């Protein structure tokens, strides 16, 4: 049994790695298509063509694209992400400064959003077509529909401006004590949760209802098993695969997709770093960030796949 799981995981891993390779190629190709390059960016608008050409040679930009790709890839693999031109710092250092912030925000949001979403999804599925389900449906649908900048702005308006309970901006560097921590993170986390919970709850509801319609649930009911046990003990184990996938898709958004939240609350995360890098044509940084987001996404999907395999005895006991 363990052998076959090992084989499946190995297969997934290798396909993940090859996907990453393709992604790296695409990222490199797209960033090379952007107008202007590092040499132009460093020297500014008034540089003479000769100066630009000289710097290009110095930076190795005159090399053919495949060679540049290989040397970039080699750098990635050895942990050298290159030099950020606009910040005059190694990319890895820049990212190391921001990544923990992003991971912390993502972590807190996950810890809060996932249980709430599962709870709401399961409750909704159990009360299908009844009052609670309808209310939850309306709520989650409107949460998915409302853009997050609106949620964030409203939150600021209410909690920071009107009530004055929370600071409008999240200065992570000034955190002192647990109370402060909660005050600073409350609004960004709330905003992110609003969207994520709604998405995940809807997917959970759909996955569970799909199982609740199956004959084995009817059989459990005819054995005199109560509704809670039917859902938790019978339906949930079979719905874990789809739910894990929905959760992974939602969570993958937490690293790269939170730019609006980072901007509104002035939160120093990695998404903001990438947007700045694009604006500054800081190609090495853009490439590194893009690779990071893709890796995170693939890892999450891999974990979801693993959950699906482990929860399915057909795959577990091949």
């Amino acid at each position, binding site marked *: 049994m363990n052998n076959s799981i090992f084989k499946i995981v190995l297969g997934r891993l290798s396909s993940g790695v090859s996907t990453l390779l393709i992604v790296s190629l695409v990222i490199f190709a797209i960033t090379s298509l952007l107008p202007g390059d590092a040499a132009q960016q460093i020297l500014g608008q008034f540089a003479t063509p000769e100066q630009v050409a000289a710097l290009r040679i110095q930076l190795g930009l005159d090399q053919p694209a495949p060679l540049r790709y290989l040397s970039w890839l080699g750098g990635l693999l050895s942990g050298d992400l290159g030099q950020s031109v606009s910040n005059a710092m190694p990319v890895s250092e820049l990212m190391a400064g921001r990544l923990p912030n992003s991971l912390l925000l993502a972590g807190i949001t996950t810890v809060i959003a996932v249980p709430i979403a599962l709870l709401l999804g399961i409750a909704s599925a159990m009360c299908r077509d009844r009052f609670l389900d309808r209310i939850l449906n309306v709520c989650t649908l409107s949460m998915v529909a409302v853009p997050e900048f609106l949620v964030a702005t409203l939150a600021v308006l209410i909690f920071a401006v009107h009530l004055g309970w929370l600071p409008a901006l999240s200065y992570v560097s000034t955190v002192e004590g647990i109370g402060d921590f909660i005050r600073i993170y409350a609004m960004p986390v709330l905003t992110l949760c609003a969207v994520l919970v709604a998405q995940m709850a809807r997917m959970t509801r759909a996955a569970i209802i799909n199982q609740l319609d199956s004959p084995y649930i009817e059989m459990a009911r005819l*054995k005199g098993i109560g509704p809670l046990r039917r859902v938790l003990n019978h339906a949930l184990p079979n719905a874990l695969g789809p739910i894990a996938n929905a959760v992974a898709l939602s969570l993958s958004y937490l690293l790269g997709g939170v730019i609006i939240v980072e901007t509104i609350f002035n939160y120093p995360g990695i998404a903001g770093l990438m947007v700045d890098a694009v604006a500054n044509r800081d190609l090495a940084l853009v490439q590194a960030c893009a690779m990071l987001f893709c890796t995170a996404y693939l890892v999450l999907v891999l974990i979801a796949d693993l959950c699906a395999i482990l929860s399915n005895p057909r795959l577990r006991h091949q």
Partner: protein
Amino acid sequence: MMGEPLDVRDLHVTAITPNGDEIDIVKQVSFSLTQGEVLALIGESGSGKTTIALSLLGYARRGCRISGGSIRLGESSILDLPPAALRDLRGHRVSYIAQSAAASFNPAKCLMEQVIEGALRHGVMSRRDAEAKAVELFRELALPDPEGIGSRYPHQVSGGQLQRLMAAMALITDPALVILDEPTTALDVTTQIEVLRAFKRVVRERGTTAIYVSHDLAVVAQMADRVLVLNGGEIQEQGDIDQILDRPSHPYTKSLLEAARPEERLTPPTLERQGELLRIDDWQVGYGQRDAQGIPAKVVLDDISLCLERGQALGVIGESGSGKSTLAMAVAGLTAHSRGEVVFNGQELSTTLRGRTPDQFRRIQMVFQSADNALNPAHNVERILTRPLRTYFKLDEEERRRRVRELMDLVKLPHSLLSRRPGELSGGQKQRVNLARALAAKPDLLLCDEVTSALDTVVGAAILELLVELRSKLGVSLLFISHDISTVRALCDDVMVLYKGQCVESGDCASVIASPQHPYTQKLIGSVPELRRGWLESRPSFASLEQDCVA
């Protein structure tokens, strides 16, 4: 706990249609059973037999509700019980054995856990006692490895075993009433006989009152003391099994009995044979990667040879997994054969679709088992029938319209159905359209894969009748694949028995069925229930040939 008497009075079950109307799907059903009696509910799909069976557990499916009447089991009035008491009743005093055991077991939990779950939840016994009792029941139901089978998962045991495991699940609390809902319909006849025997023994030994739901009169004849014939949610006739079988009074019961014995009414037409149409020599068909010798990883059919003459009908019988459908697929070119050759109409046929000519496609047509899946639900009947005409013939608009109507006449469907979509047709009508679609190509050979299996007995019998008629009218050859020996006998000249991918016996239909030579054929034919009481007891046990091994 012993069985308890059951009394059902004026039961009504109402369904709510999508546009909000309420219709009674069970009307004024009353019956009563004394302790230990077995009552069969007989009827076709839609007759309300499962709905009645479920309402005995105080349960109605989504969109339905029990709208009136009373159900008394012993001292308790089931329909008046509060939800908590009802939960305590289900899986304790009343238990249920569903048609599809494969779907009714939770795929994510091991079997023992599910078998004893009810007993544990109702606090009937401790886990240790429950497990010991389960093992005892497994042994009684003749399951292999009674100690170890509980730790397996549903996908690791065969269908017949799952069905018996479900019986163990139902009987673990020694219920007063057991409801068996088509418990053997999904099984092969050879498996069915063993499962029936096991069911009968455990129900009789415990003196349990039982309801046996089935569409198969021959099975019911083995199991029931009394029969209730249902149609459209109403009781047509009610009586002792002997009276129903020998002296049915209601015309509907008579039609059911007639449909159950197609070979008594129908005989294959006698046709002049006009030379060879299809010859298969030493065939091997399989799936998967081929090895160095060209043998596929999974060989489904091996050493198959057959010869089919023009106008002849060859029945292919065997149980599920015997490779009978694969035979049709390989003749149609959907699966490639890896050895041997096939000659059709004097020409060697290519192994795959790509190598075949349009004319060869036209001459070999397939009729699939499930018309629901074979017909495009988005097209109306006219479009479905026009499609093959466009593909194979150069006809003008007028001729095509005429031909479509001819086809409808051929399969005895009114022209008014031409504008309908498959979803608006009944099961029998869909199968007729399916047949007409194949006939549109004016084929020489029709490959019929279990074409009556998904239909009710009466409807299936009508389709069979149509096929007999089409044979004599059109002279088309048939490769008729079925698990049902009586349909083969009613339609086919010759028969071929497949077992594990090999042909174990073939020859003239009547003589093979009358005096089978191979032990497997004997077992297969001997396992088909006969419409008389005591047949089950008269059959020797085929346990020595038990092939019901771990899936």
